[in-house]
């Protein structure tokens, strides 16, 4: 048993850290968050050149065929850099296509995603704001060789920059997964500015959008299972991103506590400040254990994978917020300014806490698995 990254995994992570420090400094994050889509083509291309857009995608579709553990190692560094843009959205969509798509569909979508030519997202939740895919009620009605989509999706990440929006809809009986091209007739994408300006959210309206029946990615129980699997993958990646944000906040706060002087001494000499930092360390390291365990169990199809994903997201959701709270408090006034970078991470943490279900959501998932199933 070895619960540690291998040498190759560590090298991959270090190279991600180096590249992102160079290509995505905080000045760039701030510039991008002021733009409409927070997307930077040049930055996206340098990520694609590393193979990260296809890191999980099978080699036959131009990917690297690596595991979720490697993905977590890279995404952790994206979190440390507070990388803006559609990486998690595209990862979520590509994981779904990889699980549910036909060979032809995989070739069509996964090859250009691997190459960095296509960005994608998933339009799942609606006004009810329910992360349970089975609750999707946007209509998809059969009309000859097409499905006609009518309805509204909310909280769709990166919808304005995605080349394809994978839509989860309902025909009155079962769930459908359908790809909708950006710019399709009847599709309206409206920005809904939120707490985190580095990951944009949109309201997406479908007014009679037509999708050829041959393009349907999946239906019914199989579609729900596929969404579940893809969302597990993306949830682990998002948790890894949250971990990277926690690590940045911890490092930055400790550095500040060593240099900031009050009463003639660095504030890090005072136990009130030390203990906040120690708590941040405890939470960050515990999040690390949870994230990599979840990455390993999902990639191994371990029977504990469902538990592990909810453990990771529930813990990271609370811990990322609490680490941010302590980081701002330990910084004092400067931590409350727009000028300091802490708020970039603080806001990202809140947005991520909500995405794919918060701690309460995942604790209820765990209760279903552990309290209801308990037969000792």
């Amino acid at each position, binding site marked *: *048993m*070895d*619960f*540690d*990254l*291998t040498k190759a*995994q560590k090298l991959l992570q270090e190279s991600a850290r180096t590249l992102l420090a160079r290509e995505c400094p905080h000045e760039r994050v701030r510039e991008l968050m002021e733009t409409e889509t927070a997307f930077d083509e040049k930055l996206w291309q340098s990520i694609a050149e590393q193979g990260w857009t296809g890191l999980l995608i099978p080699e036959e579709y131009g990917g690297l065929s690596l595991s979720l*553990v490697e993905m977590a190692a890279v995404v952790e560094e994206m979190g440390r850099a507070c990388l803006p843009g559609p990486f998690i959205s595209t990862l979520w969509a590509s994981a779904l296509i990889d699980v549910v798509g036909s060979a032809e569909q995989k070739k069509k979508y996964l090859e250009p995603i691997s190459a960095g030519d296509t960005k994608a997202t998933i339009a799942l939740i609606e006004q009810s704001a329910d992360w349970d895919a089975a609750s999707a009620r946007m209509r998809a009605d059969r009309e000859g060789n097409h499905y006609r989509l009518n309805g509204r999706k909310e909280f769709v990440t990166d919808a304005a920059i995605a080349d394809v929006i994978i839509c989860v809809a309902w025909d009155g009986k079962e769930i459908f997964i359908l790809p909708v091209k950006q710019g399709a007739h009847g599709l309206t994408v409206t920005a809904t500015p939120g707490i985190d300006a580095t990951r944009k959210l949109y309201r997406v309206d479908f007014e009679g959008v037509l999708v050829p029946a041959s393009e349907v990615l999946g239906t019914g129980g199989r579609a729900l299972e596929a969404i579940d699997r893809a969302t597990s993958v993306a949830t682990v990646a998002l948790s890894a991103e949250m971990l990277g944000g926690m690590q940045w906040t911890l490092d930055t706060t*400790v550095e500040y*506590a*060593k240099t900031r002087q009050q009463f003639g*001494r*660095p504030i*890090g*000499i*005072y*136990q009130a*400040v*030390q*203990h906040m*930092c*120690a*708590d941040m*360390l*405890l939470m960050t*390291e*515990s999040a*690390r*254990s*949870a994230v*990599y*365990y979840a990455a*390993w169990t999902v990639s191994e199809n371990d029977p504990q994978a469902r*538990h592990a994903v*909810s*453990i990771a997201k*529930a*813990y990271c959701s609370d811990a990322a917020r609490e680490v941010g709270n302590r980081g701002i408090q330990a910084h004092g006034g400067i931590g409350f300014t727009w000028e300091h970078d802490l708020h970039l991470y603080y806001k990202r943490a809140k947005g991520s806490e909500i995405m794919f279900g918060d701690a*309460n959501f995942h*604790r*209820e998932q*765990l*209760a279903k698995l*552990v*309290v*209801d199933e*308990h037969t*000792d």
Partner: protein
Amino acid sequence: MDLNLTPEEQQFSDELRAWLKDNVPPPWEGSNDNEEESHAYFNYLRDWQRKVFEGGWAAISWPKAYGGRGASVIQQAIFQEEWARANAPMLVNGLGLALIGPTIIVHGTEEQRARFLPRILSAEEIWCQGFSEPNAGSDVAALGTKAVLDGDHFVVNGQKIWTSIAHFSDWILLLVRTDANAAKHKGITALLVDMHSEGVSLRPLRQLTGESGFNEVFFTNVRVPVSNVLGKINEGWTTAITTLMNERANLGTSIYVAYKRNLDALLERAKVTTRFSRPAAEDPVIRQKLAQAYLELEIFRLNTYRSLSKLAKTKVPGPEGSISKIFWSEFNQRFQQTAMETLGPWGQLKELDDNRWVYGYLRTRGNTIEAGTSEIQRNILAERVLGLPKSY
């Protein structure tokens, strides 16, 4: 990264499991609340450790030359998990096996190793640890128990406190001040002291749980041969650090299994205790709290495995052990509160589950104090892991 057991680890696990299956005695049925019964329980545990020793399982982490198996840290973790899973009784000489034996292995002379280690393994001699004093708790190095050289003996005078199992012990690893003029860490010596020596007396301390697990120990002109110095004279702090690092390095895997058993018992109770005519297990708030307990306990296990993987490479327990100490002690306090909330009025009764919940709830108050308070553990993390300046 690979969380599967290697074939060697699996074989070790199978061998141990088979041995436990054949040898674990029936659980102790008597009580533990009067002197006669506690002695009977103690003898039950001592017999058990002898059997374990004869099976070659008493101190698997010790080098083979001293009666151990030279087990890897992963094997040690497997050992603790299997032990707890088999509901095997504790090893009565736990302090000797986990803390004092390893310290003697590092700092002892060959004569000391030959004299003491075999009797620690067989439980022929029980050990306790004499570090804390009334005025030296978290600040152990402020200790004042004095030892003055008189020919080839030290003469010891002073008092120790919070000394677990002193009332059953034959020997004590004692920290004494041998140079009052040196800086506080420099004038300390570690002595191996026979508890049956003239001038040693003790008084049990009753805990808020009602039991007496630890003691005050008094030393009045106790004569200790110089040959019983462990390490060097006036360099006892180095010896003590070895003991303390072993204390913090407690692998945590047995704690996990014990706590998992508590959680499982609570999940069962949650089905039969009701709220508004429905089982507590269906109450949304209780469900949140039970799920939180479950996920924290799992993270404790995962943290443990990550530390073990690191320890397997570095070989030296690091200050990260403080994360584990804070985590399990504070988890247990939160868990016992969740248990009380889940059990409702029944939680306060000693008759429920043989006093499991009342005792468990009260006992957790000690968890964040014993083996280094939470505050000391946070100081260690801040200063030794994060590199913040020392506050004292």
